[in-house]
């Protein structure tokens, strides 16, 4: 067994597993993880310094290719945790709970690429440069997209924050929220 690959595999298996679970249904997780690491094994010479972004990019391509193979054309959606239905408690906690509920709804209305831009940085913990590399876009394009996506979410959950260019999805979300207030 190649010691360097074994070390790389054991170091990153858990992160890749979580990355894949955030993006595909449970039944497909093992297949995607397997294909990702099999590709890594066959292309070890491409992972010289920072293998994790390479693994994420490969996993993402595996998922996108699988989606294309079954005729799915929508972008790759990143799952967000669902909100529990328990008693949130104090007034502050209620406000926080409502904010989180709003955020879940808004997240689901985000463009899939905006979801990915935020997820790579916040949940996968990548730098902007690495996240841009995963997506195959420039750092500048990544930064612009991340800033806009954050601004949209912030504007939607914090009324005092202005959003100069709200997306259609956010505008819909505003209407929905007003209807239930």
């Amino acid at each position, binding site marked *: 067994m190649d010691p360097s690959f074994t070390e790389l595999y054991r170091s990153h298996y858990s992160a890749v597993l979580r990355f894949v679970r955030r993006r595909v249904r449970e039944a497909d997780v093992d297949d995607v993880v397997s294909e990702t690491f099999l590709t890594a094994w066959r*292309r070890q010479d491409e*992972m010289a*310094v920072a293998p994790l972004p390479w693994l994420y990019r490969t996993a993402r391509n595996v998922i996108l290719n699988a989606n294309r193979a079954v005729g799915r054309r929508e972008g790759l959606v990143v799952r967000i945790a669902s909100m529990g239905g328990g008693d949130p408690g104090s007034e502050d906690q209620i406000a926080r709970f409502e904010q989180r509920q709003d955020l879940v709804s808004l*997240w689901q209305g985000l463009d899939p690429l905006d979801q990915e831009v935020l997820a790579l940085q916040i949940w996968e913990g990548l730098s902007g440069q*690495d996240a841009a590399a995963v997506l*195959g876009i420039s750092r500048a394009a990544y930064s612009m997209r991340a800033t806009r996506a954050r601004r949209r979410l912030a504007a939607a959950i914090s009324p005092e924050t202005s959003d100069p260019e709200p997306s259609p999805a956010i505008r819909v979300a505003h209407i929905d929220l007003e209807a239930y207030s």
Partner: protein
Amino acid sequence: MNDIEDLLLGLDAEPCTQLTPAETARSERLLAQITQCAPSSAAQYAGAPPAAARRRPPARFALAAAGVAAAALVIGMVAGGQFLGHAADHQTGQGQAPSGLTLTELADWTAVPGHPAVTSPVVRQAARACLTGFVHDAAAFTGISDVDQRGSVITLMATDPASDTTVWCISASGRAVLAEVVNASYLPLPAIGTTAVNALGSGFGIGSGTISEAIGQAGSDVTGVSFKPAGGRTITATVQDGFWSLWWPPSHSNGPFDGTVTWTTADGASHTAPLSSIYADSKKPTTGNGKPSAIPAAG
């Protein structure tokens, strides 16, 4: 961390936790299965990102046969990751061909390279683009060598002396286009005779807008290397510090995927061999011969 990020952190569908015993067992089974396979023929795995580092001949030719444009391959992170994906970005840019180079940049290609100084602004810009775009720890890559200019396209080798990692990179107009790993701890350079050359990697582009390239080691007595692609004219390689490298556009030659390497040695002798016959065996013991000396980029 702002409020939105704080809120989103709490909504991670897969927060960081220890693997369960069942997950650990499954991961070890997968590891055993994977490492039983021979690491070859990357072309079978369409899920992989476009790749640049193609060192083993079967994989290289498999890539070419699969129609993967040589220059569409990126490591990005080392991006090779390390080197991940920036070339993919450029592939889709306005006016840019699949290689990540514009048609104008491809048209300006020359068979004989120029060699601007490593301290010149154009090389500094190229090195900055390559390191920013492709390597994870750009500051570590302090050695720049094998600078080759064909038209407005610069190729160079960047070395991290601490990790003994060398990448070959293409840059144009301040953009990082393509990078390949030439030397790394897991792919040590083979020993090479003083009058010999070998090929460490090559990629053959297919179709309009692609590029092809070849990189190898040159022994200490090798004074010049050229390559004549099958169906094309002779291209002069850049030779420095134990390496030779070159690239060409499809207008010059667009397959078949071989050619003749000719090299001259200090005693005046000329040698030729098919490219396909001089691929290095990465399993051979390394002696350090052929590794580039580090030229400080800031020097």
